[in-house]
């Protein structure tokens, strides 16, 4: 056969010929528990006891968590008011887009909300948008963090396509689609004559205010282009204090999202009527998005979220059920642990 392996002269010669005892000993692999794969190990085995107790313990832990979460969610009082349809003047319901795009038409709108249950302060005011793809890649990318943080980097508008500069090449601060499309509906709340002031401080994350949006960065050339997006920003106020913008810049994960508008530090009583005078400026009509105003309290767990509690209850319940099911199984079809009769050669003597 003409298939001798390569490098033949390397092998059989020197190595095989020489070979003192000393060298042999050095070639002996050193014994270590690691190399011999004999490290001490724990070898847990899923005994019926373990199976049942694991399921049972998981169930026992999960059910109370579920109950507590549900109770917490029940405490939350939430008032939701969809106003995008209602705020369109009745003569323009057929042409909402014209309504919202016509700047001459007043966008003021009055909504009355009835408090369904007592609400303890703080009451959180949210706006909720629907069918709004803040998570669209084109949208998410369109910002520049360096520019937001550092006044000297105002020219860094890369990635801000298509809202980088003004027509004459001036950099826009803050640039990008996210800032440009800033939500600009405003809400004012009154209860009877009492003005329920909305506190708009601290609605954003502290770290954002302090580190990501510069204290010396002021809006410039913002909303000066031919295309007008959403809200304008006061060029006198640094970005770090433009909390609406900061909140808005935290893009939402889903096309339906809520963002914090402010807090009301008043307790509301059941059946109170709250008058909301709002400016319905933001165009959601072109893409058929809904707009909602949400007043909600919050607990330690957050907002009104029944799902978590139910999920915990279901999983916990399932686990307890499984614990019983396996107990039953072990009673009906008991298998002694380590029963040699279950070895394959004992079970299928014919197939041996």
């Amino acid at each position, binding site marked *: 056969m003409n298939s001798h392996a390569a*490098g033949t002269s390397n092998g059989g010669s020197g190595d095989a010929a020489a070979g003192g005892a000393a060298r042999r000993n050095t070639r002996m692999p050193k014994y270590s528990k690691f190399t011999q794969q004999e490290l001490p190990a724990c070898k847990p085995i899923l005994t019926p006891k373990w199976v049942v107790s694991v399921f049972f313990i998981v169930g026992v832990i999960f059910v109370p968590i579920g109950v507590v979460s549900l109770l917490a969610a029940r405490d939350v009082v939430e008032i939701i008011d969809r106003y995008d349809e209602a705020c369109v003047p009745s003569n323009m319901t057929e042409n909402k887009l014209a309504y919202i795009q016509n700047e001459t038409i007043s966008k003021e709108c009055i909504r009355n909300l009835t408090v369904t249950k007592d609400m303890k302060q703080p009451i959180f005011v949210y706006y909720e948008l629907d069918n709004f793809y803040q998570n669209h*890649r084109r949208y998410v990318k369109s910002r520049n963090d360096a520019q937001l943080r550092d006044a000297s980097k105002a020219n860094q508008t890369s990635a801000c396509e298509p809202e980088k500069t003004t027509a004459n090449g001036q950099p826009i601060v803050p640039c990008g*689609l996210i800032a440009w499309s800033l939500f600009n509906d405003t809400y004012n709340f009154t209860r009877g004559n009492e003005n329920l002031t909305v506190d708009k401080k601290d609605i954003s994350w502290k770290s954002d205010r302090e580190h990501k949006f510069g204290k010396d960065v002021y809006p410039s050339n913002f909303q000066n282009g031919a295309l007008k997006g959403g809200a304008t920003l006061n060029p006198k106020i640094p970005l770090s204090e433009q909390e609406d913008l900061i909140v808005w810049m935290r893009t939402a994960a889903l096309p339906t999202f809520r963002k*914090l508008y402010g807090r009301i530090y008043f307790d509301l009583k059941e059946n109170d009527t709250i008058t909301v005078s709002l400016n319905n400026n933001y165009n959601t009509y072109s893409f058929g998005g809904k707009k909602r105003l949400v007043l909600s309290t919050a607990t*330690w767990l957050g*907002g009104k979220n029944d799902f978590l509690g139910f999920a915990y209850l279901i999983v916990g319940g399932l686990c307890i059920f499984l614990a019983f099911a396996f107990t039953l199984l072990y009673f009906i079809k008991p298998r002694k642990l380590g029963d040699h009769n279950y070895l394959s050669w004992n079970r299928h003597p014919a197939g041996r």
Partner: protein
Amino acid sequence: MARSGRRRRDRMRWSNLYTFSCFRAQHGHAGDAGPSSDGAGAVGGPGFSRVVYCNNAALQKPLKYVTNYITTTKYNIITFFPKAIFEQFRRVANLYFLLTAILSLTPVCPFSAVSMIAPLAFVVGLSMMKEGLEDWRRFIQDMKVNNRKVSVHKGDGEFDYRHWKDLCVGDVVRVEKDQFFPADLLLLSSSYEDGICYVETMNLDGETNLKVKRSLEVTLPLEEDESFKDFQAVIRCEDPNPSLYTFTGNFEYERQVYALDPSQILLRDSKLRNTAFIYGVVIFTGHDSKVMQNSTESPSKRSRIEKKMDLIIYILFTVLVLISIISSVGFAVRIKFDLPNWWYLQPQKSNKLDDPSRPALSGIFHLITALILYGYLIPISLYVSIELVKVLQAHFINQDIHMFDEETGNTAQARTSNLNEELGQVHTILSDKTGTLTCNQMDFLKCSIAGVSYGVGSSEVELAAAKQMASGADDHDIPLQDIWEENNEDEIELVEGVTFSVGNNRKPSIKGFSFQDDRLRQGNWTKEPNSSTILLFFRILALCHTAIPEINEATGSIAYEAESPDEGAFLVAAREFGFEFFKRTQSSVFVREKHTSSEGTIEREFKILNLLEFNSKRKRMTVILQDEDGQILLFCKGADSIIFDRLAKNGRMYEVDTTRHLNEYGEAGLRTLALSYRVLDESEYSSWNAEFLKAKTSIGPDRELQLERVSELIERELILVGATAVEDKLQKGVPQCIDRLAQAGLKIWVLTGDKMETAINIGYACSLLRQGMKQICLSIPTGEQVAQDAKKVAKESLLSQIANGSQMVKLEKDPDAAFALVIDGKALAFALEDDMKHMFLNLAIECASVICCRVSPKQKALVTRLVKEGIGQTTLAVGDGANDVGMIQEADIGVGISGVEGMQAVMASDFSISQFRFLERLLVVHGHWCYKRIAQMICYFFYKNIAFGLTIFYFEAFAGFSGQSVYDDWFMLLFNVVLTSLPVISLGVFEQDVSSEICLQFPALYQQGPKNLFFDWYRILGWMGNGLYSSLAIFFLNLCIFYDQAIHAGGQTADMAAVGTAMFTCIIWAVNMQIALTMSHFTWIQHLFVWGSITTWYIFILAYGMTLRSRDNYQILLEVLGPAPIYWAATLLVTAACNIPYLIHISYQRSCKPLDHHVIQEIKYLKKDVEDQTMWKRERSKARQKTKIGFTARVDAKIKQIKGKLHKKGPSLTIHTVS
């Protein structure tokens, strides 16, 4: 010079000894072979352009032949980078990743470029480092060879040492005894007067016997250093080619032209033996040399699991393409119908990537984006991890102390790491015999002289049987393995009062001689009744051979250079009996005889008149000699059948007894030869000799035939003296190993170049054959096949033999009946033809053991291919010699025995072990582990990446298919590289279902591999389903939890970063918990890796949250998620939800359908094996696969036989046997 004195002494006309093969034609330059003279005419033509100016560097240099520098490296410093990178990107997977990395530089990519390029660079870098390291080792090896020194003529008759690499074509070199030839040389002269030399070509073809080369007669005078002062000659010869056995060329010397043939050529890498030195001229150097021209790259092999993995990857790739298409269609639809309305995206300023007016184009661009985005389904890290795991597994194999051979100082070596798991799935083992099963060391064990059997020593087979009978006779319940394990150092008494000594007495003090019988030792034989026959017997042993004595000058002891190890054993035996062969001259053999211990030694000289060589066709060897009294004797030894045919009427005195003894020896697994003699009278001899000489000097193709015919004339009327029995020593532990491998359900085929008788003997010795087994022997009847239809006749006869065999197997009713197939090389040649091979294979599969004899290396490879392709299961070939290279390369796994025979097999192999017995551990322990590890690892990998990758896809549906990922780029990057890689690697490296002892104790566990229990579609799809479920659970649970509500008491809602990070936390927990559930063996390493991975994630997110570059993830854990209980609650919920189905599955499986290793784990866990030892032992014996071969089966059969007899005797006797 001291050497020259010795040289004179050695000068003999050796060529006379080798009457058949080494006959020198009278007309040296005419050449005695046809092809040579044909070729001579072609010299100078195309393909024959090489010109060598001997001893003339000035003329030689302009020809610019390659130097003798060899490199087997793939790269050098300059080419390393381009070439290695090219090699890397030839792999399709890497090319795919490269493509994605390049695309990541374009705006199409959803990730930052660095997150695509970094892992690729890591993977490629790692692989390249491995390549580089391997190449470096090769380089070191090469340098070792290149820097060997050889004595070269440097002018004026002076020789000096030079490195091999500096050798040039045309140089005259002197090679000393036991040195390797540095290049292909033309032999000019040797220390022997007639210019012959002995060459060992083990490195070339694996043959251990010595070959004779001889120089041209004209160059014989060049026998001194000085004579090369003015030596000038020109060689014109063929160009470099790989054919080892041909050479054509002309030698122009002193204005004469002489033809050269292969017998003057000394090939590089063969070794000079038994010759003090030779002079030669370098013809081919370095890579031009025949051996280098022969080198082939060993084929790269891939394991079954890996091939299946490829299939799964294709499936995943299809899924990937599918979801990418869904995404891009979704994207295109969105762009066309929705995007114009999404004013906040400024659709009017769109670029090509999302242009509402050209949705199709955008969709196509998006397809690429999506392919990259979902690329996590096919993780780059899978390849790295598997590579890394396999290297570590290989390291464990290399380091295994139980596979370290103290004699050779070799450990097992995993030479390629990518077949580790294949070791766990072997179905058929194809084994070489010599050097693999046997040590190729013969021990003279017994003899039969004048009808009396001598020698009480026992062969290994007998020993094992004795042990078995001694311990197993009363209590059949004791598992047979224990017999091997218990170290019986005691003596076992057998029936008939014969004592077999076991243990320390076994080791023979003299290599090649294990004979024990005081009747013949120490001169006692003179007191035996037939002492004259015994004397003759010993003389035959001492005289009838072709060996050369080698006197060790330091000790004065004599070693023998014999052509075959049998002969060596005979000579050692003769020496021990007091007939020491110590000298051979041109015409005589000298023996020191010492008949009794009291007597002194007598030196006797026997004149050798003729020597008729052994060859496989003649199966006998004859020497005709004249003793000191002038009596002419003919000694003949050979196969019993041959000798018996040629006995004289009065020579058959001992035939009956000898035949009986021969059968006994054969049964005990010994190699036998019959010895005979004949006394010739002067006239008869001289008349025959004249005829013989005539035949010898005849020229032409029928010379061999003539010689044979003449030989027949004298080799008759023989008188039988006796027979010898030599043990072809099995390697340590071979029968046990075969037994256990058989119990593990492996089929074992033996492929050997030996003759059928020997092979069958070894078959018995290894318990591959046993009494009561029905042997189906396939061979071509050796009739007078003259015509062309001989082939047809042979084929038909074989066909009917196979048909008969199959019929026999089919009709067999007894389920315990075992068949053995023994096939001869010639028959195999037909059986391997296309139209017959399937019939042959089907028959072979039915047989418990298959032995192929007289197989050429090529046939070995062909048989291997037939088995591999015919059965469709994993085959493993094990061998040690160069003749096994083909087989080793052809088989799914090639195992080389790094024993004494060269390194060829090892170089070609995938694994090398130093003893056959280590195969058991390699397969049953390492193979089993590696198979399970890799299978589980790959399954888990797919699970993990499906669970992760699909969440990205689901999110797309909520992000308008825009290609936005919910996770940060860095999370995705680290997911595979840091956060989940170490646990899965530790699974792949450290997982053990059961400990190594249990693997060995329960060979049946091995069957999980060949049955592929851990990587069948059921399992793979199960894991994939689990991944799908987990992805759904992770995504939708998180989505519902973080939907639109506040996540804080502070009222803030979750943004994309928060949702992504929370989801990612859940994934990390879920997949790491999953692997913790999968593992059954936790050392501190697994604990560290699994829990460490989870910890690392939190540390990472903390650290990452500190840096401003993390954008929305800035302070995410500390400020956003950490203080939110809902985040922790979600983590707990999702982790539990993801793992509950798997937990149910394994709990149910364990309680209702436990696998063997589950039960054994439990037995061990509850320490039942200690409490109930009978049960444990019983189960261990039951864990054997039903097997018809191996020692255990043999004993079982015997027991059955005894039982049957007992039943016949009387029903009252019942014997409890192993069921």
